[in-house]
């Protein structure tokens, strides 16, 4: 009986110790604020939950992801979400800025409250954010223009599809496209089209412009918005050359049909995953990345590697 009592006491002690050990696990909550829920590229970014799970197991911590992306693109709602997250005492925030200037006060306030903030996809360099993870927009614009010029044999008429005029990342890309194409004397830029960043509005913008300017034989799409709809490109495949940014599954179909010659894939999945990694390093160890601008690689996707690239999306979209 004494032995059983001792065993019971030992088991109870072990149980309490393991409970205490479990309680000692650090907990972190990170906020994610993408531009909008209606822009499909951010669906992959919201898979930051994968990073929470994997990194949580790796470092033996509990990570919770709090997504406060507004339904539609609205910089003020984003600013409001950043403030709410900061006031709720999260351990870090990652935000993709619809409008860099509008987010500055909210980001700075969050930092003043002790909440580190980083940007992904679209930066707010004037703010007190400690890091940025995303595309080098100048390189992105240049690659779009160079590849488009190559497919067009360095001659023809180009239109630039440019999305939200207020978004700083898109402004940089559009400028880089214009500057690069200026080096090709036989390429003329017909227009730069701005539009609401929803697939239907973007598709409509492309159709209108192509109809009113049938001489256009090249599209530089610095975002792939219209390619999330079916049959957005109403011309015979190959008659008009298209190079677009982003390579989500719906867009790959246009590569296969020949309407689009190249997609430059951003690391949409990494926006969420890498952001959690960077925020965790900051929250746990107080460390910033070596370079405040961490550049994500652009992956060219053509008919040669489209099938291989398509397989990666099952994981990235949480299927």
């Amino acid at each position, binding site marked *: 009986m004494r032995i059983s009592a001792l065993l019971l006491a030992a088991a109870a002690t072990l149980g309490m110790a393991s409970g205490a050990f479990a309680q000692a696990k650090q907990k972190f909550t990170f906020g994610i604020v993408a531009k909008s*829920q209606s822009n499909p590229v951010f669906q992959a970014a919201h898979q930051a939950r994968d990073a929470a799970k994997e990194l949580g197991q790796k470092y033996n911590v509990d990570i919770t992801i*709090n*997504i*406060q*992306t*507004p*339904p*539609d693109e609205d*910089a*003020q709602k984003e*600013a*409001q*979400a950043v*403030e*709410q997250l900061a*006031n*709720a*005492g999260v351990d870090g925030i990652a935000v993709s800025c619809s*409008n*860099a*200037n*509008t987010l*500055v*006060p909210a980001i700075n*306030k969050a930092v*003043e*409250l*002790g909440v580190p903030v980083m940007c992904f996809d679209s930066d707010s360099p*004037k703010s*007190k954010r400690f890091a940025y993870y995303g595309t080098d927009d100048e390189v992105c614009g240049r690659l779009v223009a160079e590849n488009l010029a190559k497919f067009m044999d360095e001659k023809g008429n180009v239109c630039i599809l440019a999305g939200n*005029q*207020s978004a700083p990342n898109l402004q940089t890309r559009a400028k880089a496209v214009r500057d690069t194409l200026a080096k090709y004397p036989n390429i003329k830029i017909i227009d730069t089209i701005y539009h609401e960043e929803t697939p239907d509005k973007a598709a409509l913008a492309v159709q209108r412009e192509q109809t009113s300017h049938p001489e256009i034989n090249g599209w530089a799409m610095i975002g792939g918005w219209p390619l999330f709809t079916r049959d957005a490109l109403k011309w015979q495949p190959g008659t008009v050359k298209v190079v677009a940014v982003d390579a989500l599954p719906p867009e790959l179909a246009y590569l296969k049909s020949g309407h689009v010659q190249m997609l430059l894939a951003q690391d949409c999945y990494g926006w969420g995953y890498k952001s959690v990694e960077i925020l965790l390093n900051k929250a746990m160890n107080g460390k910033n990345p070596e370079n405040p601008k961490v550049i994500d690689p652009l992956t060219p996707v053509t008919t040669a590697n489209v099938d291989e690239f398509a397989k990666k999306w099952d994981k990235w979209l949480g299927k």
Partner: protein
Amino acid sequence: MTQPAIQAPALRRRRWPQLQELGLIVVVLLLGLGIWLASPSVPVKLQAGDFLVNGVMTHVQRQTIQENNFLRVANLVPSVFTVMSWFAVMAIGQTIVIISGGIDISVGSIMGLSAFVTALVLQGPSEIDNSGNVVWHGYQWLNHAPLFMHPFLLAPVTQACLGAAVAMGVGLLCGLFNGLLVVGLRMHPFIVTLATLSIFRWAAEKIGFLLGNNMTLPWGDGALAPGFTNDFIALEYHRMRFGGRSLEILQFVPILIMLACLVLGWIYLRYTVWGRETYAVGGNEEAARYSGIRLPWVKMRVYALSGLSAGIAGMLSCGYSKAASAGLGTGNELTVVAAAVVGGASLTGGRGTALGAFLGMLVLELVSDGISVLGKINLGLFSFSVNKQDERLIQGLAIIIAVAIDNASMYLSSRRSARPAAAGH
């Protein structure tokens, strides 16, 4: 046989809010109570260091305590009342128009145009000093005329007054333009303001285009005049809690301006002749005309006030965000009309109050904030998640429920009024 004198019913001063507002107050309280009870706790990090504890300087370790995520000043002030301030101001203006029997769906564009023009006037070159603060170097438009760079123009009070005057002036002008079209063209206000919604938006975008395609101001390394932003609309109050171990940053000026507009709107509608004329025109336009009320002036006034309220909203938004874009306010007209209707304004005219508009906006904002703070609702037997994607559904349901309560209160009121008349027969 002489007829007995017909006695006019005694005028009863209403001492309590009407049932419609009372119903809304109950909705707000119930909503707040529900969100508070369902809201999770959030960590409040208390800093380590030397602090006064019970009057004695003591070294304390870093500590984390839990607080209800909804019912705390750090949530209610910035995430509910400040954010709703510009919408509530526009809803009050919208209610005045709706009471008169009209509608103004150009308020979102007026807000954007007034904010954009204000930012254009107040922006100037700037740099960041060693402390990381933005130092503003004067108005951009005066840089070409340095002789006019008088200290009076650069004084913070002047910056604030200039920003307010420009925003309200643009709003008022837009409102008068709407009024002139409604009165002059005798077209339905919906059609007129649908047209001006596009015109005012075009105006903001055209200004941005003429500025070298800059659709967001300030451009480049510029900043807005700090006398208007940091020292006025975005004035910060640093609240230290728990003996100085926790910081909250609160901005009260938009809330104070919203409350001032609420009081002024309430006084205007309830106690001024102009306000009563608005109800009369909305209730029965022909009867108002025959009673000598000058309809064109009433209509001009209501649209001017609606424009002015949108201008004030633009001022608040621009000052708070310290920036403005040409697309600012897009879609806000729907939120504002919804707030006015939820607040009891009748789209057929003749009914509505400033307090109702404020409460209507508060209901919508509580729903939005509730979705953000709740995350998950645990009802014991089951739980479900709410996220930003559900916001539209929940807001739509909240509008239907609030209007249903309003209609029920109207029905009960009409039955109560019919009873004395029936008893007299």
